[in-house]
């Protein structure tokens, strides 16, 4: 057993912590959320300089050979800063898909560009009406001789408005396949919007979208296990982000309990609130343990173990995040429900993480089904 970060990891963590504190204060973030892009392109370049856009890729493709523990520490820091940049969409999800399923030529063309901050991508997988089920893909891919024609609709594609390319899942006779599609290709229509937590997403219509044979990512009909793996990575990353947010929320709440005075004393002197705060810290430590478990196991080649660990973590962290978010708001009184303070924004982000790629109940179901299989 070894729960320690390496020297390199600690250095990266420090770099990110300093960046968030100095260059990504809450006021900046608040303005970004209202800007046209909805995130900071300069920060994205800085991320490239830090190397975090290159983390999970092999050095042959401009990567740093990082693992999911590296991603965990990045996400925790991005969580603290409530960073709006589409890191999970581009690096974890799409980068991961290209890394795991791409041909040498595709990796060559795309991974260095991601690592360098020049290319952004979004995964267009989930569809209207399909909820969280991974295999509910009605979008079709028809072979055209020279390539494929894609038709269908995708819902809540995170990071789509900024994406240069989309990775689209579609069904042909043999099963589900993945395609690289230029976001500006004819027949691709985006309905963009902000999300409840200030990020950006889009609903997408694909109508007679023509792509070449080289757009296929991986082998035709076999994408489901690859998608499942990428979403496990994304969920592990979101859990780490949630833990970063929960820690930050505990810090601001603790500070508030010490400074806000009512009845002639700091409200932190009231035992009811002391116990609540203690419960919030307990929840966060427990969540951190599970996020660590997911980060270590998501890299495992044992698919059942990987699935089970991530499902357990998303279910568990979801419940703890709900508690910590709600209570942080509650303990701030009226100050907890205003747009001007970071508290409500942390709370909203935690809530939306809880609804992304399966909520706590969905993952509890996935985990509890494994009890039958055992």
């Amino acid at each position, binding site marked *: 057993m070894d729960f320690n970060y390496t020297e390199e990891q600690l250095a990266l963590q420090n770099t990110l912590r300093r960046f968030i504190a100095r260059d990504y204060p809450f006021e900046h973030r608040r303005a970004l959320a209202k800007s046209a892009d909805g995130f900071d392109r300069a920060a994205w370049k800085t991320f490239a300089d830090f190397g975090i856009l290159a983390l999970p890729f092999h050095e042959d493709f401009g990567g740093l050979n990082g693992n999911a523990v590296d991603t965990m520490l990045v996400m925790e820091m991005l969580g603290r800063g409530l960073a709006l940049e589409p890191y999970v969409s581009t690096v974890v999800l799409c980068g991961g898909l290209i890394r795991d399923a791409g041909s040498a030529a595709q990796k060559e063309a795309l991974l260095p560009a991601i690592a360098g901050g020049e290319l952004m991508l979004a995964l267009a997988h989930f569809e209207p009406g399909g909820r969280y089920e991974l295999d509910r893909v009605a979008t079709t891919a028809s072979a055209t001789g020279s390539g494929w024609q894609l038709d269908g609709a995708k819902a809540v594609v995170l990071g789509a408005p900024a994406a240069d390319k989309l990775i689209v899942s579609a069904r042909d006779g043999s099963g589900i396949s993945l395609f690289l599609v230029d976001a500006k290709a004819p027949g691709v229509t985006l309905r963009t919007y902000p999300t409840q937590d200030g990020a950006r997403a889009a609903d997408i219509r694909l109508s007679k979208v023509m792509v070449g044979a080289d757009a296929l990512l991986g082998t035709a009909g076999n994408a489901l296990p690859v998608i499942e793996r990428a979403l496990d990575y994304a969920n592990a990353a979101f859990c780490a982000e949630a833990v970063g947010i929960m820690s930050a929320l505990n810090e601001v709440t603790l500070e508030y309990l010490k400074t806000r005075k009512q009845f002639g004393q700091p409200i932190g002197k009231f035992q009811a609130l002391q116990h609540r705060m203690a419960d919030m810290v307990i929840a966060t430590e427990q969540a951190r343990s599970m996020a660590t478990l997911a980060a270590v196991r998501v890299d495992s080649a044992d698919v059942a173990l990987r699935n089970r660990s991530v499902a357990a973590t998303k279910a568990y962290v979801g419940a703890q995040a709900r508690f910590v978010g709600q209570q942080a708001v509650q303990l701030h009184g*009226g100050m907890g429900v205003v747009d001007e303070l970071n508290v409500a*924004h942390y709370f909203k982000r935690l809530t939306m993480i809880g609804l992304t790629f399966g909520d706590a109940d969905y993952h509890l179901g996935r985990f509890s089904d494994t009890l039958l299989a055992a």
Partner: protein
Amino acid sequence: MDLNFTAEEQLFREDVRSFLRAKLPGEISRKVLGGKHLAKNDFVRWQQILHAQGWGAVAWPVAHGGTGWNPVQQHIFDEECADAGAPLQLPFGLKMVAPVIMAFGNPAQQQYFLPRIIDGTDWWCQGYSEPGSGSDLASLKMRAVRVNSPEGDHYVVNGQKTWNTLGQYADWIFCLVRTSNEGRRQEGISFLLIDMKTPGITVRPIIMLDGEHEINEVWFEDVKVPVENLIGEENKGWTYAKFLLGHERTGIAGVGRSKRELKKLKEIAAKESNHDRPLIEDQRFRDRIAQVELELMALEITNLRVISAEGEKRAPGPEASILKIKGSEIQQLLSELKMQALGHYALPYVEEALDAGWPGDALMDGYGDYSAPLSGQYFNIRKTTIYGGSNEIQKNIISQMILGL
């Protein structure tokens, strides 16, 4: 023991229903049921319609234009209004300041203010909380100094109120102000009625976490208030405010609205699909609905027990606090489950979809018109355990004042 409504009560319910069918404007109820933005005039218009029917203030004494209905009838009325999608009758005038004016105001105040409340002429807001005085309200600082002058004696008011709900629309604000620093803090507080048009008052919006403008800061700079606007005696304001807290029990539980929201939750769960089946067939989710329904069933009976016993002379018990705590928790759970039922389709923040008449968006299929407000409602409804005496304060009341711990 009989938990059924009597035949008369059922007839009464029918009367209320047919009134609502005939008189509640569809463009208003559609907004309420669809979670759309309501304009000031929607509230005012509904108040006028109720008033024309003689139901503008059902709980008031008949002498002031009330109905004389018993608490069970009032409860039925609340429930039917909520179910039909009537706008909430805002409590600030009808349920908060009016009972104080009736109990402690002078005849001139009663004659001037009460008719203007019941017919919807005046919009009232509540000015109790201050930045430094929330749960500990008695620490409030806003100063009112009495000045004798030839043009008429008046108070000069300086200070700040905050968290003021819908004050941006208000004609009048009722305030607790400090008129003395002698003795106990509670004994230096007075109850003042202030015309919002008085020079020196500035209303600044506070945007809430759902992006809505529902609350405000209200600043007072040398605001002149005629002494005629003092309620009762100077330095007795705390007593009047406390009278108010114990006064109103029907309604705090919000049973009617929660029943409506439960119905809506079931509708959403029947519409959303999960594994190609309606979500409501998913046992894990259905059990969550069932659990909150159990809470609501219990609260409904508790509420009826409490209001049926109203009028009996007894020492004050924990009832009002129980209704507030459970009522707010249930509202929060219902809003959370509605959002959860949508899954990731609850992520988009489409502001224009909150306006009545939004035509929908062809590119966002899979979303009902109903989905847009749900996340915002969940965020917004966190307020219910904070305001009106936070749930922690309610538990202090039960444990300290009632149980003597």
